[in-house]
């Protein structure tokens, strides 16, 4: 379909046993780069809250980028089942599949603009993605199972409430048991002082910087970013500073989580689009 001079195509591409649905936005004057837009896990379709993801795709297409947004398995028009926002494993296979499909269309120079768990997945998938020329991540988790790990930092009242809510039938669920094991392990190591820092976020960013791939990290001032700030203090900040522009991190004065305000949506476009424009031209 076409909107003025921007064309959009609904496509399906294979990812493991599923066919995933994506929308390719085609610019009138292509600049040779494609913005791949993986988002957080939820049941929202690929347009995003208030169409923010669709607007991002159309805005970058106005700047000459192809854009590709797609539905995770079990969401929107993709195959598969969605049970809950499962964040144990990054969605590497799906990102590889999207990248492979884009390459099959001759779109093999990719810049990722990812949100939330899509950002974590993009970082974990990055070593497997050919033609990657930039990564912008918005409000990404910095630790695997970040919600469970964060919950394990809660006090006794939180644990008491959880125990009160326990029902025997819940224990029959393998997912519930696995989650409880993680909670207990995290709490145990926290109490014993043996908790170790999950370095994969910083390592993944470091690998990108080693490859000369610029990275932009954006958080809202009201988002949870203590883990990210801890990583900055543990060397990530120095590494990003050493890389220099366009690599940078920025905190915007809103809550970006969920894009539940028009301001947050405006900040997304306002930060990402100029950053995309600032990327260096690809080396021959």
């Amino acid at each position, binding site marked *: *379909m*076409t*909107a003025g001079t921007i064309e*959009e195509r*609904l496509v399906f591409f294979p990812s493991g046993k599923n066919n995933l649905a994506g*929308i390719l936005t085609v610019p009138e004057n292509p600049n040779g780069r494609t913005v791949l837009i993986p988002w957080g896990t*939820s*049941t*929202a*379709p*690929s*347009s995003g*809250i*208030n*169409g*923010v993801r*669709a607007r991002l795709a159309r805005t970058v297409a106005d700047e000459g980028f192809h854009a590709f947004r797609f539905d995770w398995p079990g*969401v*929107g*028009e993709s195959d598969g089942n*969605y*049970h*809950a*926002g499962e964040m144990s494993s990054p969605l590497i296979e799906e990102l590889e599949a999207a990248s492979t499909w884009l390459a099959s269309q001759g779109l093999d120079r990719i810049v990722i603009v990812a949100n939330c768990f899509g950002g974590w997945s993009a970082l974990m998938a990055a070593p497997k993605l050919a033609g990657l020329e930039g990564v912008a991540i918005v409000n990404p988790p910095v630790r695997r199972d970040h919600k469970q790990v964060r919950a394990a930092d809660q006090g006794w009242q939180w644990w008491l409430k959880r125990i009160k809510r326990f029902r025997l039938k819940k224990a029959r669920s393998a997912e519930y048991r696995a989650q409880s094991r993680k909670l207990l392990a995290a709490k145990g190591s926290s109490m014993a002082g043996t908790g170790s820092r999950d370095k994969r976020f910083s390592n993944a960013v470091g690998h990108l910087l080693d490859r000369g791939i610029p990275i932009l990290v954006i958080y809202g001032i*009201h988002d949870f970013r203590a883990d990210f700030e801890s990583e900055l203090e543990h060397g990530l900040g120095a590494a990003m500073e050493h890389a220099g522009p366009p690599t940078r991190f920025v905190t915007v004065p809103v*809550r970006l989580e*969920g*894009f*539940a*305000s*028009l301001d*947050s*949506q405006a900040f997304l476009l306002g930060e990402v689009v100029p950053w995309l424009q600032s990327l260096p031209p690809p080396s021959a």
Partner: protein
Amino acid sequence: MATPRGLLYSWTARPPQAKSCVLVCSSVFGDFVANYNRERLIGRLLASRGHGVMRFHYSGEGNSQGQRRDMTLPTLYDDARAVLNHAESLGFSQFALLGTRVGALVAAATVSAMPSSVPLAVWEPPKDPLRFLAEAQRANRMSRAAQGGGENAVNWRQELEQNGVVHLLGYDVYPAMVESLESVDFLTTLGPETRNVMLARFAAKEGAPDPIRDGLVDRGFNVQHDSYGLTESWWFHSEKALESNNLITGTVDWLAAALPEPA
């Protein structure tokens, strides 16, 4: 599908030889996203039973083209009619409609021009469509308070008047849409032609008055009224929407029974 407001994004299930088709009229704004997974599951389940399904995004909503500032209740009606025409052009000839919340008004307006044999299922049709926006603002205030922000005491109507737009939980609502929702009534929109109607309430108390159900019964409609014990706040995109198997299977069973058996 081309419309005067641009092309519409749609999803069509076309089981072999299917003549029957359910047209799904979604809600708008936060409801559109909150309810999306349910409508996706409804579509897949109906298709697995041999019925065609058409789902779509209104112009200015989701992946469709168009501007939200141009969206009004009549443009939603026009979009649904365009999709119905497209379904007819694909060879579907026996229809049922499903409308959710504000989409129930769209489904009611669409079905009112169709024969009385066309059944209609609706989820939570709003008695007063403007309450739909008032509820959103209440949810907005609660959300701000929960996030530690100060409560914004400005009424959404005042905000609309002052700024020409009101911001509700990440959605921009324009005067054209608000004006089009004024004085709209589900029963009047549905018209006088009686038909089979399924009225699904999410959490109605047993024996509690339901003016829409009572109005339908008074006018001679054949009404199936069900409550599904779902507690959720519309507008918020919540994983609670996943806990609605009974609603989905109940609706699909009713639609499948109301439509002719697939060949």
